[in-house]
């Protein structure tokens, strides 16, 4: 079985982003970029399926600028076999991403697709679900456990009340939550090996998909600042403040 995974290029989760003073967006100059953390979990899961003999090929896809090759290389160093870059300088939104991914799914015919649940830049949490819809496939979002069966997969999902287990027909789209696995680090030999693995490049036009955004960002502003608070010396002082100043307990 072939597994398709996705790797979005995003601002590293450790970076404290800054809103540009003209409110046009956030400052991406000289900012460390990484594979979206949920996508690292997706890649890890796919590679483990291959190591367990349940998958025979792992293909990683990224949609973005030419520099997204770096994130594909990272995925290849983590164990993916080959990469596909859908190259565009348009800031493609989830519906457009899902359409581009559908074109890749049509080409590659994977038995399983694993995406992250959420890209930590736009915090949209949409793409996997949209891809499943466009392909007419089942979806298992927010996965914390994945078990492949015969033509089906059993997935435990993190939901608001706790955990839920569903069984989905394959091929399916699975989106990862934090507890699915703990991604490995790429070893130096694997980073070297990854340089020789193939990456195919297409444009959205090559694939015949329209990625024009439907949503325009009018402005980006910093969030409301919180007033700096005070340090209390004792628990007694804390309780007094909460009762008599903030009046949030009685």
């Amino acid at each position, binding site marked *: 079985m072939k597994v398709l995974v996705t790797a979005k290029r995003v601002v590293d989760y450790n970076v404290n982003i800054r809103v540009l003073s003209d409110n046009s967006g956030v400052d991406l100059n000289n900012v460390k970029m990484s594979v979206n953390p949920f996508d690292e979990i997706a890649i890890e899961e796919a590679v483990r399926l291959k190591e367990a003999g349940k998958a025979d090929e792992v293909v990683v896809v990224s949609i973005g600028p030419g520099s997204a090759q770096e994130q594909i290389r990272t995925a290849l160093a983590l164990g993916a076999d080959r990469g596909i870059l859908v190259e565009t300088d348009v800031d493609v939104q989830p519906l457009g991403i899902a359409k581009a991914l559908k074109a890749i799914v049509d080409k590659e015919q994977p038995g399983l697709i694993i995406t992250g649940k959420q890209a930590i830049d736009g915090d949209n949490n949409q793409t996997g679900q949209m891809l499943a819809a466009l392909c007419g496939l089942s979806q298992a979002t927010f996965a914390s456990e994945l078990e492949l069966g015969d033509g089906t997969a059993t997935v435990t999902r993190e939901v608001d009340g706790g955990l839920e287990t569903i069984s989905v027909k394959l091929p399916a789209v699975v989106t990862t939550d*934090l507890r699915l696995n703990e991604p490995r680090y790429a070893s130096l030999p694997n980073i070297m090996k990854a340089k020789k693995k193939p990456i195919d490049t297409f444009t959205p036009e090559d694939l015949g998909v329209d990625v024009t955004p439907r949503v325009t960002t009018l402005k980006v502003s910093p969030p409301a600042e919180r007033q700096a*608070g005070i340090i209390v010396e004792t*628990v007694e002082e804390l309780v007094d403040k909460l009762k008599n100043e903030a009046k949030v307990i009685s």
Partner: protein
Amino acid sequence: MSILVVAEHDNESIKAPTLVTVAAAQAIGGDIEVLVAGSGCGAAGEAASKIAGVSKVLVADNAAYDHAVAENVAALIAEIGGNYSHILAPTTSAGKNFMPRAAALLDVAQISDISGVVSEDTFERPIYAGNAIATVQSSDAIKVITVRGTAFDGVAAEGGSAAVESLDSVQDTGLTTWEKEEIVKLDRPELTAASIIISGGRGMQNGENFSLLETVADKLGAAIGASRAAVDAGFVPNDMQVGQTGKIVAPDLYIAVGISGAIQHLAGMKDSKVIVAINKDEDAPIFQVADYGLVADLFKAVPELDGML
């Protein structure tokens, strides 16, 4: 303009995030209808008809919609969606699951987790873990939107008298079979509904130590939350995670115990009215958002706090 609100419910009653979503619909303005899709959900449909400001309730009662199976609920929303200018659902795990699927079936974008309504086509939403707020305008004919639970004051659950209509169409894709759930039974308020929350982080050291927070929570009528580190380490279950990729909360009082204050955690709680931090490291970033900070060993401070309540 007609707005469809997809209800969050448990077949018996309507959940609070639905009321928040109706409030967002009112901010957009227009006729508001509520869809209750479930199995044996007549009582929830009746409850929805009492929500203030709702003109009609559509009840789709069929086994196919049990547990809000995304493939089926999304197909149902897509089937009736053409009648509406806006389709709204709460940003809950169910809403996050079926709404983008419905949007794609309708070939429209989704605007996720809005925190404000500027006009009928322009909305505010947090991005980058709430470190920036984007104002976005949609050019789609149907706006599919999820609504942040802390962003609007919910409308009254009682007072309305909407007509209830049943939808006979059954969208059963047969793609997914629901098997089982492990739902944590709470004696305390739910995190997203609580007016006081006490949360523990890696500093709690293990699951047993969360009992220290429980006794305080019981006295305050508080819910208990956690950081990702505490959940990943297995101290507490996943449904307790507060943050960018967990639950978003904004109680009157949030007490963070042994939590450093990573941006991903702050994203989930920094809109709380009053924030208290108890941490032994005076440089912990949590103190930068805390109204009241206590630099102390939690194993000493929390029992002391308990004794004073």
